[in-house]
């Protein structure tokens, strides 16, 4: 009798646990997803992908949160410090992501990438930005380079036939545009990172890969000649007063508004610029046919190759508390079809093989090619280095724009921070 009841008991346990496992497979899960696309077409695309995935996986609910860039950074910092990352969220990879990875806030997806050849669908350089110490924490959706977006009509109006290819030609063109009564350059230096591109690109052109590698490995220093010269060149430009009125307090949104409405001639910006120009313009069309693009000009006597690129991209990483389904969804939005859809609305310069064809904008094709062929691809400094150093770079370059710091002082401040943070 006793034996019988024991067997019954065991069978019962098996049955119950079996039911639970079956339930678990279909248990409802909720995935939180934070992205930074606020333009209508882009928001709609992300929502559509989420809806499609939810339709195919009825047990999955995806909560999509669209945040403006600066607001996203603030909100993300808060939840990260409290140890509760969203399940899938925007990342630029590099230094900031590494801090999160070190703190154990990110989910290691290396094993998933190695399954079914998912890894091989990405271009390796772009994927590498989202790895730290050999582990992958996310995947890219976009990779491109910073360059000059310009208004061809305004250039023609000032009588400039070809975009400049050297730094001194750029300075001359700035003067010509000014003389024609056109604001030569839009910059949102209140946000700091748009201006930092200038100093960083000058350092890339003047010092090449060797200068940054030396400084970053701590064998050299950010007070080395190329970084100081970058500051001096930048101040040559600032002395011409080429920016819109109030640029020191302006945001990236203000910058895109000026460009989108055709009120400034050029803008040093990444691959997301055309979309933002359109979204911030009055007619929501942006520059359209008037848009042109040229790479950052060569600096006379610089060690860098003119084909070297400063850039980076966008991607998504997975938070440590995410359910497994989050990885499945990440894979879904990284598919070739999704990438083509992103490319078609100029949201992403694709990083998944076979999606390049989705790019319809000829300028973005140039950007994509440029980034792909660059021998030396420098990630933006504020992503390549720890957040503290990146922030110090941005703050001090603003000082160069304002003329309150000398190139030496700015370089010294950056070096001090690097000495403390990079070990």
């Amino acid at each position, binding site marked *: 009798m006793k034996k019988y009841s024991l067997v019954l008991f065991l069978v019962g346990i098996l049955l119950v646990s079996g039911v639970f496992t079956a339930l678990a497979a279909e248990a409802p899960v909720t995935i939180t997803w934070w992205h930074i696309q606020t333009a209508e077409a882009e928001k709609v695309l992300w929502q559509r992908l989420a809806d499609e995935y939810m339709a195919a996986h009825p047990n999955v609910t995806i909560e999509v949160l669209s945040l403006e860039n600066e607001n996203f950074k*603030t909100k993300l*910092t*808060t939840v*990260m*410090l409290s*140890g509760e990352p969203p399940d899938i969220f925007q990342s630029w990879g590099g230094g900031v992501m590494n*801090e*999160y990875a*070190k*703190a*154990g*806030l990110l989910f290691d997806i290396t094993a998933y990438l190695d399954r079914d050849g998912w890894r091989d669908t990405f271009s390796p350089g772009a994927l590498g930005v989202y790895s730290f110490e050999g582990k992958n924490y996310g995947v890219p959706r976009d990779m491109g380079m910073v360059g000059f977006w310009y208004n061809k009509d305004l250039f023609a109006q000032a009588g400039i036939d070809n975009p400049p290819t050297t730094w001194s030609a750029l300075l001359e063109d700035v003067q010509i545009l000014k003389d024609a009564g056109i604001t030569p350059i839009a910059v949102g*230096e*209140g946000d*700091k990172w748009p201006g930092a591109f200038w100093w960083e690109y000058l350092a890339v052109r003047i010092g090449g890969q060797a200068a940054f590698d030396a400084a970053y490995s701590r064998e050299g220093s950010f007070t080395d000649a190329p970084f100081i010269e970058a500051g001096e060149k930048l101040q040559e430009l600032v002395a011409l007063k080429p920016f*819109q*009125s*109030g*640029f*020191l*307090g*302006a945001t990236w949104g*203000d910058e895109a508004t000026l460009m989108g409405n055709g009120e400034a001639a050029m803008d040093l910006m990444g691959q997301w610029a055309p979309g933002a120009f359109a979204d911030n313009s009055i007619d929501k069309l942006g520059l359209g046919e008037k848009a042109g693009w040229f790479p950052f000009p060569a600096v006379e006597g610089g060690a860098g190759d003119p084909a070297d690129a400063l850039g980076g991209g966008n991607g998504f990483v997975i938070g440590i508390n995410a359910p497994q389904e989050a990885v499945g969804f990440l894979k879904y939005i990284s598919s070739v079809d999704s990438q083509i859809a992103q490319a078609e609305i100029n949201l992403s310069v694709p990083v998944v093989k076979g999606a390049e064809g989705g790019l319809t904008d000829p300028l973005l094709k140039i950007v994509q090619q440029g980034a792909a062929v660059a021998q030396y691809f420098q990630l933006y400094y504020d992503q390549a280095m720890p*957040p*503290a150093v990146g*922030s*110090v770079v941005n*703050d001090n370059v*603003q*000082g160069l724009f*304002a003329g*309150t*710091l000398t190139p030496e002082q700015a370089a010294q401040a950056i070096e001090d921070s690097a000495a403390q943070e990079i070990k």
Partner: protein
Amino acid sequence: MKKNSVDQDVQTLPQKTRSARRLQDRMTIVLFLLPALIFFSIFLVYPVFRSVYYSLFSWKGFGPAVDFIGLNNFKRILTDWIFLKAVRNGLLIVVLSLAIQLPLSLALALMVGRNLRGRAFFRTIFFMPYVLSEVITGIMWLILYNPDPKRGFINAILTLIPGLKAQPWLGDTRTVLLAIFVVLTWKYFGFHMLLYLAGLQNIPPEIEEAALIDGVNKRQMITYITIPLIGSTIRTSVYLSVLGSLQVFALIWIMTKGGPVNASEVMSTYMYRFSFVRFELGYGSAVAIVMLLISLVFSLAYLRLVRQADYLS
């Protein structure tokens, strides 16, 4: 009558029951204080002590703090010229508030406190900015200050006046702090005005009537009767204004992030930048402690030197 009988009751009670009742009263007090005390401890006292602890570390905010560096954070704060500039900017806001904002509030209170036509209307619109959230205020003024006359209302008006040009109010290191002070004044004068109005209502009309019979003029009435009689209100308002000015954050962060190049940096924006942009939470905690100490020293000194009179009277 009734009171007497209760007293008699109490006197007739045995000694033991009386002390028991006193104990019961104390228990009641403790019981009623407890919820507030718990929240105060969890959300205020405990975090302050955590901050003191973290301020002794080089800590990025993730995981436990392990890199003990003693008082180095404090040493760094006191030698950082940007922090000193933030303190100077903060003091400037304090001085300007006391010199401009409060007198303005008092003047308006005297105006709308009198039998002015439509004073209820004025009282409402003067108080309205105070009700808006700081973030909304910041964004609104950001648009008003837009350097482009096509988008910014203030510059649009300016360019209508011959000989004047549009100014990048928030984009110029020389004007940014004043531009922010204008917003602070706009937002907070209504609050101080309301304090003064309450004070004015407490002045017994007999005193003013007596003064009128004695033949004082309007100016004498204000300087010798009104202001001295609302002295304690003024002292409260000064106290709140100074502490508020030392801690202003959201407006400045929204409008300028302390820039351009630290021109509108105050202690709170400095603290925020280090804590949440640079992930130097140990250092940020140390800045918070310094802020706390400055506010605390001011509070204690002010209570002792200035407001003591209010409690004694």
